[in-house]
């Protein structure tokens, strides 16, 4: 039996991945999350042990460590999926507080979890998988800056961790998913509307941009595609350093153009 710790297991994508790993067989999943009702549901799956885990709290991580350690001394994989999204301006409203909150979950949460469970991964000859995003390597879209900041940080953290842990033969892999229709998407819509209501300068711009954003976020990719790539990252004998899943075609095309041209395009669309 192999063991994997999965953070963010109660999110829509996390839940789908946990279900697929459970169905795979041969793996015990420690499904970490903060939503008790959803954890209870996950606990009904075969080979899934729900663990209360708030990645922003050292105390919660320590308690989860003790629970997991009572089942196993080794981990064959740690999958960092815990993440949040806040849609906010970079200068208006309570952006500093929001950005700090997102960095705390998306980046520092990963750092805390990997630090605490690193020894279990090392002695289990395991691997660390960090969930980045297509936002981790694309030039940020307007008003999606804070989320992109965190994913850029995840990319840098992941790559430096990989180049550190390679000396201990621990593979560190990043997953770069595109957009999936989840509750996170609904939250983005709500944040967007809130932004339109509260902004002093961008009401017209944001209203014009909303259909574009809806089109990109509304792409109905199958979350099982993500689960499949994740399982590949967990089980491949020689895993790649990164796996891209369902990258947005329009956004990828924009990446091919010079920055100034894309800036002008964003401006032209709004006007």
């Amino acid at each position, binding site marked *: 039996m192999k063991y994997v710790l999965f953070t963010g297991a109660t999110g829509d994508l996390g839940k789908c991945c946990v279900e697929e790993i459970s169905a795979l067989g041969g793996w015990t999943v420690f499904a970490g999350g903060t939503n008790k009702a959803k954890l209870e549901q996950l606990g009904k799956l075969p080979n899934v042990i729900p663990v209360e885990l708030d990645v922003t709290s050292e105390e919660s991580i320590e308690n989860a460590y003790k629970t997991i350690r009572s089942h196993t*001394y*080794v981990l064959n994989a740690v999958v960092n999926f815990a993440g949040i999204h806040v849609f906010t301006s970079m200068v208006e409203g309570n952006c500093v507080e929001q950005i700090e909150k997102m960095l705390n979950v998306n980046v520092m949460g990963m750092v805390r979890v990997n630090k605490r469970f690193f*020894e279990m991964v*090392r*002695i289990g000859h395991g691997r660390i998988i960090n969930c980045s995003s297509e936002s981790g390597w694309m030039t940020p879209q307007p008003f999606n800056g804070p989320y992109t900041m965190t994913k850029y940080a995840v990319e840098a953290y992941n790559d430096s961790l990989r180049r550190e842990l390679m000396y201990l033969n621990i593979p560190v892999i990043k997953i770069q998913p595109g957009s999936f229709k989840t509750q996170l998407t609904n939250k983005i819509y709500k944040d967007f509307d809130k932004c339109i209501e509260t902004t002093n300068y961008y009401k017209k711009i944001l209203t014009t941009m909303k259909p574009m954003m809806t089109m990109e976020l509304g792409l109905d990719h199958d979350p099982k595609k993500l689960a499949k790539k994740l399982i590949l990252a967990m089980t491949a004998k020689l895993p790649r350093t990164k796996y891209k899943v369902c990258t947005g075609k329009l956004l990828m095309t924009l990446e091919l153009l010079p920055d100034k041209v894309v800036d002008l395009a964003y401006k032209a669309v709004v006007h």
Partner: protein
Amino acid sequence: MNNEKPVSVITGGTGYVGLALVKHLVSQGENIRLFLLEDHPCLDGIECEKIFGNICNAEDVDKCFKGAETVYHIAGVVDISGKKEQLMWNVNVGGTKNVVESCKRQGVKNLIYVSSIDTYPDKFCEGQISERSVYSEVGLESPYAITKAIATQIVLDAKDDLKVCCVQPTGVIGPDDYMGSSVGAMVDLFIKGLFPVSMNFGEYNFVDARDMAVAMRNAVDTGRSGECYILGGHRVTVDELMGFMANTLGKKKPKVKISKALLKPFVPLVSKAMDIAHLPPMLNAFSLSKLEENCNFSNEKAKRELGFSPRPVEETIRDTVLWHRKKLEGAV
């Protein structure tokens, strides 16, 4: 066997530490019960009770520990070849968990556990290495060391339920090597004249299994619960070891001393050859690195509290070599 005397259980009684302890306890007139996977001719003629079972099976362990006052837990898997990692987790960690839990269930008063000096991560530090209070996998590389460190802490954590002491021997040598250790295989080759070269580097700390046995018995009376005791003997260089062996056999010490730089490229080849010849893995990257580690272990605590008294290393090597010569002559 005197049924009124308290019973002492020994797990792993056929290894040379186990056998040395069995002989010592019998010589003290103690009532002993061995927990064995299978019988072995080396136990012929020794008055003891034998219970057969697997240490990975909690029911077997319970059956054996029933009514025991003291348990000496020696059974373990030592592997530096990297082929038995899962077995080491099952036996060294899982087995030790079973032992500790069974001791609690069966009301055993004393548990003496043979840990290992490999549980110390201070390989490349300078100065003398003394006992720690907490053991974990942090800083350890070999799966053997990791499993032994975790098992040691499992034993120490039971200190409030029964008296637990861990002894941590350095390189154990001595006669009665029926199970075939790596050092024993080297001695065999030397006696056969198949070890014609010495080394101009490398040093290790050796302890006599018989001295260990005395200290382990004393731990029941004078050891403190929750404490570890390093049972370190004497530091001997590879060249000195060759010299002592040659003296015992009346041979000349190998004149040629090879350096590490010269030996290193041949290590994978030698390791493979030993594997093909079904010899214990004497020389591989792991054993080579061990010869360069700090082997300056303090045995002061064991001397003070367990009456540990390591005999001269010349005597240990002489007895070891003579036993192996007898074995090769078919006399044991």
